[in-house]
């Protein structure tokens, strides 16, 4: 038994538990405070104040919302497929948190440094499509069914340009390891992948495509066809109440955070300072939350796209450009 | 189509009385009184003359035991406004539908059916529009609820 208390082992266990708790707390915290920002930022855009009653500057508003969601009953409507209905939120939220576990937040703060980190994120984020769709289908609600069909078509369409961009990125960086990819971008902002014009002159465009695909993959406006409230009320989540809805909510923001963190890692140099000085967690968070801000900013600036407009954008604009980027990258790699 | 042409065209309809009215006094340019069985023909004529149906108004003349139906037509090109009126008996108010010529009349006729109980024969679905689905009363009749 004494060996169990071996120093390294205890530390390792503590580390694991801390990271597990920390990640779930991080996901929940992000869901809570990004949702507050989701109300505060548009209030600035729209000449309003936003929530300001609960706590100073509305800082306790997410707590109040959370308590409200927790105390509400999870209603299952008659005719719904109860098992799938309750399975769906878990299938959405677990992969999202698992993706978070591979994100290197700084040089040292890495929950799990996996060699195939990029691939892990992509395979796990593919699961949430099934979860959303099951939720929509199992709700036994026509609006939710339509949303379930939409989420699949949308995600299939946007996975392709996303993967094409990532393939070209992997060709440049020769690695699936997120830590390595960030380390290659050390130095100033001119070494970031987004400005790595020597690898492919289309890199800034590739970043924009990545951002668009990330919006579409996490079903954010202007691609929020899945929960288009003026058409489908709340889409796939129409029938969810209480914490069932809360889990979808957490997963949505966790997906945004993962997408923004990945954008930071892949294109914006991760934890490196733009001027090559003092790298660290704060730079990572600044960049990541700036991307999150942009996500919210985009949401409150534009109307929703049409469904076929969205598919057209993917097939007629994003995929050709991504393919072109891939080919240019390959040619440049071969030439230089 | 000018007012004069329209007047001559309308006068050819059987049993019609066409009166040119002062727009500033009456709000319409032409006032036609016509027999109820000529209504479909009138509607076709107005449709050919590119007139739009603006409204169908029922009036319950309790003293005469008659129900008057006023069709308001407007031309979007010339701005001419025509009111065509016909009277049917109050017990069995029946007139042929014009919703086949003016699809917009569909709702107006349903509304008049709701309020006055006028039966528009040939109407595709004369079910209550504004009143509850099971309404069997006609609130704009003068003897309703009075």
């Amino acid at each position, binding site marked *: *038994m004494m*060996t*169990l208390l*071996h120093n*390294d*082992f205890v530390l*390792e266990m503590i580390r694991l538990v801390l990271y597990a708790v920390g990640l779930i707390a991080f996901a929940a915290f992000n869901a809570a405070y990004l949702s507050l920002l989701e109300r505060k930022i548009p209030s600035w855009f729209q000449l309003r104040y936003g929530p300001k009653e609960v706590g100073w500057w509305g800082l306790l508003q997410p707590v109040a919302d959370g308590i409200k969601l927790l105390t509400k009953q999870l209603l299952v409507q008659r005719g719904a*497929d109860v*098992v*799938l209905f309750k*399975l769906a939120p878990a299938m959405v939220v677990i992969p999202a948190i698992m993706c978070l576990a591979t994100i290197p937040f700084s040089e040292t703060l890495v929950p799990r440094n*996996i*060699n*195939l980190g990029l*691939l*892990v994120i*992509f*395979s*796990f984020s*593919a*699961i949430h*499509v*099934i979860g959303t*769709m*099951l939720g929509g*289908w*199992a709700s036994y609600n026509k609006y939710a*069914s339509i949303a*379930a*069909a939409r989420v*699949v*078509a949308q*995600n*299939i369409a946007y*996975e392709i340009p996303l993967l094409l961009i990532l393939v070209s990125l992997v060709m440049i960086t020769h690695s*699936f390891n997120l830590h390595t990819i960030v380390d290659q971008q050390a130095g100033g902002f001119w070494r970031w992948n987004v400005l790595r014009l020597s690898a492919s002159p289309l890199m800034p465009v590739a970043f924009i495509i990545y951002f668009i695909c990330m919006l579409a993959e996490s079903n954010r406006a202007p691609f929020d066809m899945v929960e288009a409230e003026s058409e489908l009320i709340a889409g796939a989540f129409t029938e969810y109440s209480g914490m069932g809805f809360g889990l979808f909510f957490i997963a949505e923001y966790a997906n945004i955070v993962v997408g923004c963190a990945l954008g930071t890692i892949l294109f914006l140099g991760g934890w490196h300072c733009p001027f090559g000085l003092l790298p660290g967690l704060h730079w990572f968070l600044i960049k990541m939350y700036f991307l999150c801000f942009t996500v919210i900013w985009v949401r409150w600036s534009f109307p929703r796209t049409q469904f076929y407009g969205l598919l057209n954008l993917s097939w007629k604009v994003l995929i050709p450009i991504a393919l072109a980027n891939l080919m240019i990258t390959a040619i440049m790699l071969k030439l230089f | 189509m000018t007012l004069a042409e329209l007047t001559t065209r309308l006068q050819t309809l059987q049993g019609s009385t066409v009166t040119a009215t002062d727009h500033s006094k009456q709000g319409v340019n032409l006032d036609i009184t016509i027999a109820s069985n000529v209504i479909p023909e009138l509607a076709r004529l107005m449709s050919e003359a590119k007139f739009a149906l603006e409204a169908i108004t029922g009036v319950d003349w309790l003293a005469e035991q008659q129900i008057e139906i006023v069709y308001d037509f407007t031309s979007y090109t010339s701005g001419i406004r025509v009111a065509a009126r016909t009277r049917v008996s109050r017990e069995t108010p029946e007139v042929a539908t014009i919703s086949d010529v003016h699809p917009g009349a569909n709702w107006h006729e349903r509304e008049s059916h709701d309020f006055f109980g006028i039966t528009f024969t040939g109407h595709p679905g004369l079910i209550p529009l504004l009143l509850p689905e099971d309404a069997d009363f006609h609130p704009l009749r003068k003897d309703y609820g009075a």
Partner: protein
Amino acid sequence: MTFTPDTFYALIAAVLFAGFVAVTLLGAIVAVAARSLVRNVTGLALSFLGLAGLYYFLHSPFLALMQILIYVGAICVTIMFAMMLAELHEETRSWFMTILTGVGSFVAACAFAIPLILLVRRSSWMPAPAAQVNIGSIEDLGRALLTRYGFAFELISVVLLLAILGALAVARSGRKPNS
């Protein structure tokens, strides 16, 4: 047996392994036995997730991730999409036929499974190689795919291309103007 951190890790690994096996088999059973097609696909997805875990235990995380990415993320989603698009549902049959086909299929499946399992238990496989030429890393896999299996790799890509074209052609041929 002394209880060292290593045994603790091994125990966790064993529990995880058992969990993956359970998910794989239970998912597979749901995939064939459930009456609703959506549940079938969900079972299939779960089964593949478990299978990915088993691949991880076989020291090939790349395959495990590809399994998730392609089977769960693409194939299962596509099946579901097709079901939504075509509104497919299981045919309803009389209870007699249901029981008959169920029992018949079960017997047939057992006829395959029991000899196979017996074969696995009885036969002695050739011994493990003394040394492996590589560790099966993703670099080795990539090199092998482009050298030794280059022909098969190209063939697969042609097959996939043909499949895509064929799928497009078939799906388009059913489309009538005005419908």
